[in-house]
């Protein structure tokens, strides 16, 4: 039918309106975990230990509220470099000595944290 392309266009336009309506309240529910919602609150602490290539706790997604402070502590049995992508924070760590990255999570997105020399991904920070 000749009207169908117009029909499709209308549907797309309506969808656009619906989405923009949703967009103004666009944080999806259920981002909860033990993080604080006020930026004046204490920093979220994340601790990771690497031993013989084993990462504990296992790499997972950590939910962080935009604006929270994050304190990431990594201990490894090998000398290495810890890199938090996006925020471009990097520290060198020595065997057995914990190294800490402190950052304010002001960029939204999902950011990987990895060890360069061992080429291992430690965890991901989801900031929103």
């Amino acid at each position, binding site marked *: *039918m000749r009207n*169908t392309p117009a*029909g*499709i266009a209308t*549907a*797309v336009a309506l*969808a*656009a309106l*619906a*989405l*923009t309506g*949703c*967009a103004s309240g*666009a*944080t*999806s529910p259920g981002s909860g975990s033990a993080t604080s919602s006020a930026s004046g609150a204490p920093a979220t602490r994340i601790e990771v230990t690497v031993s013989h290539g*084993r*990462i504990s706790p*296992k*790499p*997972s*997604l950590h939910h962080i509220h935009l604006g929270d402070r994050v304190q990431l502590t990594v201990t490894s049995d090998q000398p290495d470099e810890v*890199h938090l*992508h*996006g*925020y*471009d*924070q*990097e*520290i060198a760590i020595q065997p057995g000595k914990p190294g800490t990255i*402190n*950052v*304010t999570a*002001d*960029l*939204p*997105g*999902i*950011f*990987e944290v*990895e060890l360069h020399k061992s*080429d*291992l*991904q430690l*965890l*991901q920070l*989801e900031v*929103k």
Partner: protein
Amino acid sequence: MAHQISGAVVLAHGIGGRRDLPLPFSYVLVGGALAVLVSFAALLWLWPTSRLRGAAGGRALPHWATSMIDAPETRWALRLLGLALTGFVATAALFGKNDDLNPTASFVYVLFWVGLVPASLLLGPVWRLLNPLRTLHLGFYALLGRRPQDGFLPLPPRLGYWPAAASLLAFTWLELAAPNRDSTTTLITWFGAYALVHLGSAVAYGSRWFDRGDGFEAYSTLAAHLAPIGRRTDGRLTLRNPLDGLDQLPAAPGLVATVAVLFGSTAFDGASASTTWVVHAQSGPLSPDTANALGLLATVVFVGLSFTAVLRLSGRITGVTVPDGRDTLPARFAHSLVPIAVGYVIAHYFSYLVFNGQQAFILASDPLGTGENLFGTATRHADYTLVSVTVIALVQVFGVVIGHILGTVAAHDRAVRLLPRGAAVLGQLPLLVLMVGYTLGGLLLLFSS
């Protein structure tokens, strides 16, 4: 200031390492519902006879526009631009430091690989002119006194797009599973080998090898079929409906494989970013690089096989007679997968281009690591707030849904053209279900974290 600078050097490093937030569920719901709705509406109510006119469609551009764009000066300017850009990146790779501040990896993986798609969508098959290999071949053949298309051997038609599919698979392997993929040594080796293979083949078969043999040219050309500018059969440039452009894509061997590589590799890139996969790849019996290589291959093969199987099914249930046999049916519908693949590429790589693309421009100012500031950008930082999370999410869902709508309409038109009248609806059903599956799968990948 939020960023702490550790040490004297700010690390503008690492391609990737950042990915988008999951799509809000409301977007997935609306997008998915729209895809399903449009698919069934198209099946039941869209035009009953083929309406797309392929190369005959579109409105011709004024003569001066065509002559300007096709002028030898324009073409040579683009060829020289391609050589210059390649030369710049090659210099950085060969003579620069092999560290995180070398611009080579950003240029290759972000500006080139991702940028090729919007450039081709807007301007047409630009890589055919920018491709330095084609220019080198042109020069070499000129020295031999041959026209570029006069190869020494005839190009076997059964080769089709297979070399392009293999080239693109080799590149996506490099991008997603190769060890030290950002290292200039790896990139020099890979592209050196690529240049040898394709230049050698073009010397043997003539410049037509590049059309369907060179993976990047094939990629640019496929995306360009969706561009608003096209070429009519008489050579005139036209302003046209992307669906007419898509309709012009000829069925050829290896086309399904090529689109399967493009779609499958992007899907795997998305799926392998999850921490579930990371744990599996890092603590499994295989090395992470091997696990990723196998995952990439499996995803590509899955897309290719599912598409082929579904079209074979359509062929069997409709009992259609197809010129050159029913085995060509998948290739005759492969064009309808192109917008779905391109839509998903846009969704997956949009923010990557915007954010990591900035990195390329910053690092370009000091290609050799000597402290230069050639373009004045060396001290800048990438702005990760250039586009908002909402804009990114909208681009993602629109990319996937519009790609799906274009693919559905293209498939429908081809079906009513090829399939017998009474069986057209039944014959389209398997492909429709598959496309909805791909789109919902794509949306789910964007939704999951």
